[in-house]
């Protein structure tokens, strides 16, 4: 087994945070190497150092036994390191082919050689068995397709090492399976692959080796995965015995007046005949495959789209919601978005403002916000969600992905809503935070909030929801009462998804 890349003693400090602290990583040819850790452990930072995005403050990187200084993405690429970052990084206006070849546009007589670009793109897409027209502009691709194009792009440079930072966060399990087939193929072809993910099932399905980061330190260094059980891995990540806290059994809510009732609603977005209701203290799971129309339904309910037919009743009265502000202040409905970077978090504002944004209207006297009141709210929720911050005046953009997710939830907790729509709350969230999130959502419901939980994570829905509605192609395919027994529930749900089930 040859080592393609060895990183030793990598250290990186950001103002106020030591993101990496003498971390080590060895990548071998023909191996899939899982790089794990909680949110903020330093995984993305490590990847960014290996790809020349950040310069390390200390440490050494050897490629094929020789020391390299990766001062730019260009240098990293030349050293044979390809990467798919956690954030999408394609040029929307360019074609698939040009994006793939962007790092080294082939030229002929000084001009870009279109023919060779297309041929090269075909070759890379072929490696992934991806049948995609290379001339399609990237802005037209679905997230899954864009993800695969990024991988094709990483392959275009003939990278021996391929770093994948949470590649499946926005993919369906089908799509993820396909992706991992590709990963296995590449591994068999002798590539060394690093996989960052929070989905441990995936790790055990494809990885051979394991490095675990905790607070920037590598607590498990390039060990064989075979020696670890699921629990061992979690324990290493968390740094102590981690007990999967069993969720408190939820009270059974007697049927009563719904906090939110949607009756026979059709929308301009294409939903037909949607009927749903949630009671105070209840969690209604809304399950479906990516693209089933759940997010768009939520947005339409919040006034961001047009309802063409049907009624929405909030707390007994017919509601006409104009926008999110209206929903928040008039109807006390909150919405935690799925897409935190673009829609959930104000990256360039302080954490304090991010959390307090929904409560200013309540805190304001004569239009002015009282700082003391704001401060206590911010402290309360950052502590309750255990957000890893150096100060409330830190910019949200400096938080790790998972902690950003918590910030985007915090503002809605602070808003003190009666109905909360939560869209994919734990995508990209580490296992401990995920547990904490689940607990929080449970607590919220217990405190009398009606929760509509949109999730593509079946175990999550089964663990949390009281009833589960399944959406398929912009319609409700059916609804089941959750017995919390995973296997029968998942069967029932899958049947509904594939159109063979019966509405309960």
């Amino acid at each position, binding site marked *: 087994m040859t080592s393609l890349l060895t990183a030793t003693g990598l250290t990186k400090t950001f103002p106020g945070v030591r993101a990496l602290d003498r971390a080590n990583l060895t990548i071998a040819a023909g191996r899939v190497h899982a790089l794990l850790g909680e949110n903020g452990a330093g995984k993305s930072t490590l990847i960014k150092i290996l790809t020349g995005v950040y310069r390390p403050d200390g440490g050494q990187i050897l490629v094929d036994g020789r020391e390299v200084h990766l001062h730019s993405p260009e240098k990293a690429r030349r050293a044979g390191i390809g990467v798919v970052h956690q954030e999408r990084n394609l040029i*929307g206006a360019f074609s698939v082919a040009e994006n793939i070849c962007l790092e080294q546009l082939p030229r002929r007589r000084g001009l870009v050689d279109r023919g060779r670009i297309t041929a090269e793109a075909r070759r890379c897409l072929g490696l992934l068995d991806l049948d995609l027209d290379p001339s399609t502009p990237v802005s037209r691709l679905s997230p899954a397709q864009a993800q695969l194009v990024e991988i094709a792009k990483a392959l275009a440079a003939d990278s021996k090492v391929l770093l994948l930072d949470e590649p499946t966060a926005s993919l369906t399990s089908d799509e993820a399976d396909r992706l991992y087939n590709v990963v296995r193929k590449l591994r068999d072809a002798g590539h060394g692959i690093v996989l960052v993910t929070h989905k441990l099932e995936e790790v055990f399905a494809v990885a051979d080796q394991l490095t675990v980061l905790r607070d920037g330190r590598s607590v498990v260094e390039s060990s064989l995965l075979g020696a670890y059980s699921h629990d061992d891995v979690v324990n290493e990540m968390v740094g102590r015995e981690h007990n999967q806290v069993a969720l408190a059994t939820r009270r059974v809510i007697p049927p009563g007046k719904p906090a939110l009732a949607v009756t026979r609603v059709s929308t301009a977005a294409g939903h037909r005949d949607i009927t749903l209701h949630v009671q105070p203290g209840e969690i209604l799971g809304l399950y479906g495959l990516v693209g089933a129309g759940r997010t768009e339904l939520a947005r339409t309910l919040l006034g961001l789209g047009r309802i063409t037919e049907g009624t929405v009743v909030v707390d007994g009265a017919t509601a006409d919601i104009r926008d999110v502000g209206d929903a928040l202040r008039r109807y006390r409905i909150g919405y935690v*978005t799925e897409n935190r970077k673009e829609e959930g978090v104000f*990256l360039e504002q302080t954490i304090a403002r991010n959390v307090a*944004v929904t409560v200013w209207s309540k805190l304001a006297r004569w239009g002015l916000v009282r700082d003391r009141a704001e401060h206590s709210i911010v402290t309360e929720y950052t502590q309750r969600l255990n957000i890893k911050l150096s100060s409330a005046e830190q*910019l949200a953009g400096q938080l790790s992905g998972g902690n950003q997710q918590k910030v985007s939830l915090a503002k809605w907790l602070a808003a003190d809503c009666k109905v909360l729509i939560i869209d994919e709350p734990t995508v990209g969230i580490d296992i401990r935070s995920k547990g904490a999130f689940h607990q929080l959502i449970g607590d919220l419901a217990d405190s009398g909030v009606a929760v509509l939980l949109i999730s593509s994570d079946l175990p999550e829905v089964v663990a949390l929801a009281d009833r589960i509605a399944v959406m398929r192609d912009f319609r409700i395919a059916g609804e089941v009462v959750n017995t919390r027994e995973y296997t029968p529930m998942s069967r029932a749900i899958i049947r509904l998804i594939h159109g063979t089930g019966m509405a309960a």
Partner: protein
Amino acid sequence: MRALRDLARPTAARPAPAPRRGRYLPLLMNQRVGLTLVIIALVVVFSSLRPAFLDTRLTIAPLLADITVYIVVGLAQLAVLSLGHMNVAVGRMAALSTFAMGFAYSQWDVPLIVGLLIGLAVGAAIGALSGGIIAVTGVNSFVVTLALDFGLLGLVTILYTRFAGGVAFSARPAGLSALRNDTFANYCLGDVCGPRIPLVLPIAVIAAIAVGVLFRHARVGREMLMSGSNMRAAELSGIPTRRRVVQAHALSGLLAALAGFLLAANNGAFSAAIGEQFLLPSFLAPVLGGTLLAGGAVSVLGTVLGATASQVIYKGLNLLQFSLENLKIYIGLVLLVALSLDRVRTVLVQRRQDREAAK
């Protein structure tokens, strides 16, 4: 509807920019200190080259009157910079508003304050109009205000020709000349007279404090800043973003009108040329003061200092009696240096922080 389409298409989303560094306190703090030092240094240089620079009656008082105008001009731009927008029609909004004031004074004989209020209302209305177009259509603010600028350019001259029979109103409401000529030194209680500060200066100070409080403490101002940081997230956090866009532009128009009034007071007439020279200084003051064009963060104190610095530069170079070409060249160069100094400072602070962090 458009907003929904935007929201519904994750595929079209641009990835968020890499977090910018040095964006917030305490750097902002230092920036103002740095600018203050620049101003002090300039004053020292100019007054040693030309002692007349310290002549209170001929230099300082007029300088303060000019600073007054350009603080408000800077604030007018800052109001929309908070959103990451631009208002390239600031000058022309000022022109239209001062037209309204002049019209009110000459046709209706209203008192000074009433005419001012009418003008402010017109400014706010035209600002709201441009904000409204931006909010409803989603067209870039530069484009909308550029088109508006073209439009108002034509309109203002047509209005003046039609109603003032030329380029200016001859009406001079009572009190205007006191605003123009007097300093507090003209007003005495017994033997004690005020300082030689123009009567107009407090107006700018009040405007600056009001705008400062708005963005620092008021819900509306904070929500403008949040909208400036991330319009979509703002909308999804329950901020009425369209209303905030309209309000920010209305505020910009209102402040432009106030600046127009102050300039008319300084110049002694309500004329079509008011505002013609506002565009560049309107950006200069906030930018010198550390406000970014990207939106989401503003510095009112910085704008005050920025306006002061640019007027000090102008006044000093004027006193040095450069020829036209040298005057222009030096203004450009001094500005570049002043702006780059800030960059140097940022780099130094960054280095120091890095060093400390590495320890």
